[in-house]
């Protein structure tokens, strides 16, 4: 374990090591978690172990939206109440949860599992772009909303997708960008503030008319 002396029983050390590999878990947290498991009732430990195995055995990617799911197609894709003509494209599965939390979107998703990162060698073939283009070309889609991150990689991915989707004739939109709630104008960068100003909306008709109100 990175040269640290082993003063604990090997099975505990192995568990600490396993926790330590998880993102955001340092050596101290790993120890705490391992000793928590050690002291916890057997049932709790078994539930954890089973959950870990299940996640590898039972979870796969939805053949339509590429989100992680137990059933294929996933619950969202097979939900008749959702607008089947809208696809919101996100980078990661967790992003769908964030969009769901916003509570204003009732269409489907497409998870890319990453963003184009040319300098790291992540090209179009490494993420689920082909799947999206095929899905759109099968028809029935009215609008594709690009909700990739507002980073260089997210923007690169979005503009590459615009390029690929344009021939299909489907409307392609990008989520607006502006100041997050609680942010100071003083600290805003010029790109954010510039777009926030260009895409400003009339105050009276704020509800749902952002696209018509602002300059696109």
């Amino acid at each position, binding site marked *: 374990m990175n040269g640290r002396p082993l003063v604990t029983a090997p099975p505990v050390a192995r568990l600490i090591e396993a926790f330590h590999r998880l*993102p*955001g878990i340092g050596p101290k947290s790993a120890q705490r978690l391992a000793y928590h498991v050690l002291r916890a009732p057997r049932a709790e430990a078994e539930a954890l172990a089973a959950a870990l195995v299940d996640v590898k055995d039972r979870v796969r990617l939805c053949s339509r939206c590429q989100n992680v799911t137990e059933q294929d197609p996933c619950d969202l894709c097979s939900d008749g109440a959702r607008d089947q003509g809208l696809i919101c494209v996100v980078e990661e599965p967790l992003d769908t949860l964030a969009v769901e939390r916003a509570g204003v979107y009732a269409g489907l998703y497409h998870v890319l599992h990453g963003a*184009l990162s*040319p*300098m*790291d*060698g992540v*090209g*179009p073939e490494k993420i689920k772009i082909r799947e999206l283009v095929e899905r759109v070309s099968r028809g029935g889609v009215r609008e594709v909303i690009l909700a990739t991150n507002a*980073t*260089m990689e997210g*923007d*690169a991915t979005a*503009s*590459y997708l*615009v*390029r*690929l989707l344009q021939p299909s004739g489907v409307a392609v939109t990008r989520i607006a960008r502006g100041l*997050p709630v*609680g*942010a*100071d104008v003083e*600290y*805003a*960068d*010029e*790109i*954010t503030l*510039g777009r926030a100003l260009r895409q400003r909306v009339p105050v009276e008709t704020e509800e749902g008319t952002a696209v018509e109100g602002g300059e696109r």
Partner: protein
Amino acid sequence: MALRIYRTEAVVLRQRRLGDAGKICVLFTPNLGRIEAVAKGVRRPRSKLAGHLEPLTRVSLLLAKGRSLDTITQAQALDSFAPLREEIERLSRALYVAELVDRMTDAAPDVGGLYRLLIDTIERLGATEALDLAVRWFEMRLLMEQGYQPNLERCVRCNAELALEGNGFAALAGGVVCPGCREAPGSRPLSGAAFKLLRYMQRRPFAEVARVRVDAVLGRELEMHLRQAVQAALDQEVKAGEFVDAVRATSPVAAQRSGRR
């Protein structure tokens, strides 16, 4: 007491994730060369730094010296090169340029010339129509700045005088080979037009080079030679080059874009 805080201007070349919400920024600075610095919390939406530290931003920074990496404490974008971000053709080239600087440079004092070259090129990529030519000119100038100037005067193998036609370009050997030495390892045929343009790029400012009409075939040939020269100097593949190719493959004006439109 040693000064713990210092100020510098920089171009953000790239970022990578660090821990939960932080990033490590790779910066190119006029006085320190290529450095890495930690930006804490920039993946949180309310970060005051985040928008100022995106790749391909010219930024004024306040940094605090750290044990291994310095930490960015304040950042103010000076130029975000917005036109780059809106067009994938421009962005892909700019990323390629940033990757070259990232890989070909190191921490080094007084690299103002290279810094100027980088800024001028990024600025140019936001405005020019001769995108690929701007990248070629940058490759040539970067090679020259870093001591890898291709030899275009005499055959690099036998030192013979060079005629315009019938030569080869041998990146590994460091320049042009005469018709008699064209069997040199890695040598590729060099057309007279490409040879002339390579020489012109070594001697002339971009404004003059940009007036040259470069058709798709010549553009492709120049790209091949200069990419090889860059790869020979780096001894590794430049990853963003593939992306430039991928973008070009989807371009609605693919045929016209490779040189000046």
